[in-house]
């Protein structure tokens, strides 16, 4: 038994060594975002340029790993979701500035760093899923705490970056005390523990547990298109998407993005890949494969996402929200948002 195990081990270590073939050019991505989502885009890049793309999905600890690897790090591109996480990369000193006309032409100035330390690649709105039969056409984020939703709202953990960003944006608009009151109201509205993922909101509406749920826009596309299987299609069929706004403002649109690593051994290829990701064909793939909002104005949103109606991003810049992120996360602890007690 042990002998077999030993042999297997050696064979596979050899196989692992051989699994990285000698491509003339390659580029290595460290990502907190599951790379399978953008694999079609990466494959298209390899087909077009002959540059092989290697990935490793590091959900937590990407920064620590790149810092620890230091000058020997193979990482060329760092990829992440959530604006705050993107800025964390820059603050950790593991990115480098990039100057590229193609990137500047394709990504609006608000969605990239002036020095080229980071670039947003796609957008996602924080929206509300509602039971189809519910008479509800519009809602504001502020109204999520209304008493009419007592025990009728589903939401994932308040400590998830998608929610922390929403709470931080609320705080940037209304101040800390108003945010605390609002968040306590949202907590009182919980129909079940703040757990699981955004898709669970749709499932639990279909299951009659809640009437409304807070979730990201693209999950609706993933479910409604049947990409997540028949069951998820049934969940999508039970809901409608309402694009909320802040009172007198717009919708919270967060981003996914990327940066070139400070010690990138393949910087040229890394920039080439970033330029490709911002180009029209790749941006179309972002919209088609993952139902996100393209950052490149030349690419269009997916028809399923278009059915939600127009999304007007709030005029407040994401960088204005950033300073409130930590406080938002602490507030979640302070009011025990994640401990279900209704």
């Amino acid at each position: 038994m042990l002998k077999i195990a030993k042999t297997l081990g050696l064979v596979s270590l050899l196989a692992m060594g051989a699994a990285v073939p000698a491509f003339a050019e390659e580029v290595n991505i460290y990502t907190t975002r599951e790379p399978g989502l953008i694999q079609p885009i990466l494959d298209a890049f390899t087909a077009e340029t002959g540059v092989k793309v290697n990935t490793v999905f590091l959900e937590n600890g990407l920064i620590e790993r790149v810092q620890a690897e230091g000058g020997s790090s193979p990482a060329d591109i760092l990829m992440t979701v959530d604006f705050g996480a993107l800025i964390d990369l820059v603050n950790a000193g593991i990115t480098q500035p990039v100057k590229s006309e193609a990137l500047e032409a394709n990504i609006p100035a608000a969605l990239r760093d002036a020095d080229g330390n980071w670039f947003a690649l796609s957008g996602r709105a924080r929206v509300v899923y509602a039971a189809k039969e519910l008479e509800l056409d519009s809602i504001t984020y502020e109204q999520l705490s209304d008493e009419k939703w007592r025990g009728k709202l589903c939401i994932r953990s308040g400590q998830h970056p998608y929610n922390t960003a929403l709470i931080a944006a609320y705080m940037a608009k209304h101040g800390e005390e108003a945010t605390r009151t609002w968040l306590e109201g949202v907590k009182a509205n919980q129909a079940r523990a703040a757990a699981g993922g955004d898709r669970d909101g749709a499932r639990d509406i279909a299951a009659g547990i809640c009437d409304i749920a807070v979730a990201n826009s693209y999950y609706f596309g993933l479910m409604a298109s049947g990409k997540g299987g028949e069951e998820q299609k049934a969940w999508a069929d039970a809901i409608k998407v309402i694009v909320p706004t802040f009172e007198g403002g717009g919708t919270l649109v967060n981003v996914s993005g990327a940066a070139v690593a400070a010690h990138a051994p393949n910087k040229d290829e890394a920039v080439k890949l970033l330029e490709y990701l911002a180009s029209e064909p790749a941006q179309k793939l972002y919209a088609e494969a993952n139902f996100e909002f393209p950052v490149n104005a030349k690419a269009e949103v997916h028809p399923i996402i278009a059915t939600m109606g127009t999304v007007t991003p709030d005029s407040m810049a994401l960088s204005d929200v950033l300073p409130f992120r930590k406080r938002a996360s602490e507030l979640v602890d302070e009011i025990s948002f994640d401990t279900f007690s209704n």
Partner: protein
Amino acid sequence: MSAIAAGRLKAQSASRISPWAVTAFAVAALVLLPVATIALIAVADTGTLWNHVLVHVLPQSTWNTLVLMAGTGIVAVAVGTGAAWLVSAYDFRGRGVVEWALLLPLAVPTYIMAYAYLDILSPLGPIQGAIRWVLGFQSPRQFRLPDIRSMWAAVLIFGFVLYPYVYLTARAMFLTQSANLLEAARTLGVGRGKLFWRVALPLARPAIAVGTALALMEVLNDVGAAQFLGIRTLTASVYTTWVVRADLAGAAQIAVSMLVFVMALVLLERLARRNQRYAASAQRPRPMPPQRLRSWKSLVALGLGVLPVVIGFVGPALYLIVAAVKRMDFAGLSTPLLRAALNTVSVSALATLAVLMAGFAVAYAARLQPGRATGLAARVATLGYAVPGTVLAIGILIPVAWFDRSLDGVMRASFGWSTGLLLLGSGAALVYAYAARFLAISVGGIEAGLSRLPLSYDHASRTLGQSAGGTLVRVHLPLTHTALTAAGLLVFVDCMKELPATLLLRPLNFESLSTLLYGEAVRGTYEDAAIAALLIVAIGILPVILLARTGRLSRD
């Protein structure tokens, strides 16, 4: 045993430090390295945040963790010990199958168990669907059971998937409890029912404690299931503090307080039985003959034995099979899936080998040179199990990456040749992480196995002219191979299921079954996730069956 011989043996061992002790210290140092790294991070920066953690995070999550651990412990001990007694004290139709099937939940990771039951028991799932159909309701909006995202559900889910750790150790103890003791008790007028409470159970207490500790550490390490079920545990707080608030120091502080807490628990248990001795006689114990049950009693026993298997294994396994079949046209297994399976098996096997050798060295050193130093080495070597996987991984990442970087720098400077990231890039860091994390299992198991062999064996062997090495090969290894195999199989299964450390420390383009599954789950493409999960369970079954066999062989 003559007092003179013992004295000489002791004098000898005190005079020089054996290579075993040196190895044991080295192993302990390797485990201590990541733990010390985390402790250093924790003290490096305190700032104002610690206040927040102390007031708003720790009380709640400590309470949740305590309740979850206490509940899981009660369920696991009740189910594990009860089932072990059932199959060792009674003989009934189907016992042979039940005996090994009771181990099957070992193959199911906690996060898969939680996910499966969330779906099975959802208002949209088959069970509530059937209830609605019987009661004549059309939609879940008219009738549904309470949501299972709650503490009591978490306790049941953890308890029924983790009881095999207790079952395994308790059964081994019941099987080898010599019939003499039990018969003596019966002669003294203890009925068969009371035998369990008065004799068998107290005698099995150390074994049950070991099994329960293993189960509870699994609870502490879990992130996925708690996330699905909405339980804010200490481990979940470690994550939040680190990832959301980008505060590694704060996370390390929580992790260190957890470690202190766990050590206190372990100490408490040891203290509680410090005045008790559990020794077996040198004669091979004659096992107690099980009582034969007939007719309805046999059926009841079978039902009781099957129930934990159904909840802890059949339920989630069926769920995965249905999900996999429903969502894929059996085009075969995809290449990434097969490569991930190969990766999983090989890294787990290598790690198991490392864990066994290191564990044996530590346990053997403690036997050859019993004393404070070797005892301490043995305790330190088991620390890794009490640290949540991700935190341990960070503790490993930093020194390992430092080594890689330094080596790379030196090689580049002196030979103009880059080694890149030698340990991180080759997957060796993963093997290290698994070894550091699961060493507790092998040290515990092997120590228990060795402690069964009376020192008189060693003395006899040495008197007959065997060296220490000869005694090892000719006496100790053959007599502990059951314990070794059992520990090895348990470690292997645990390595296969490991997720957080694997995520952080793997090389580029490297997927194990668990990371593949996690990636799919994050992405929401459950069709492949179900297949990967099924593979973990399927590959995990094999060692579990072997494990059941080793237990049985030791009885024959």
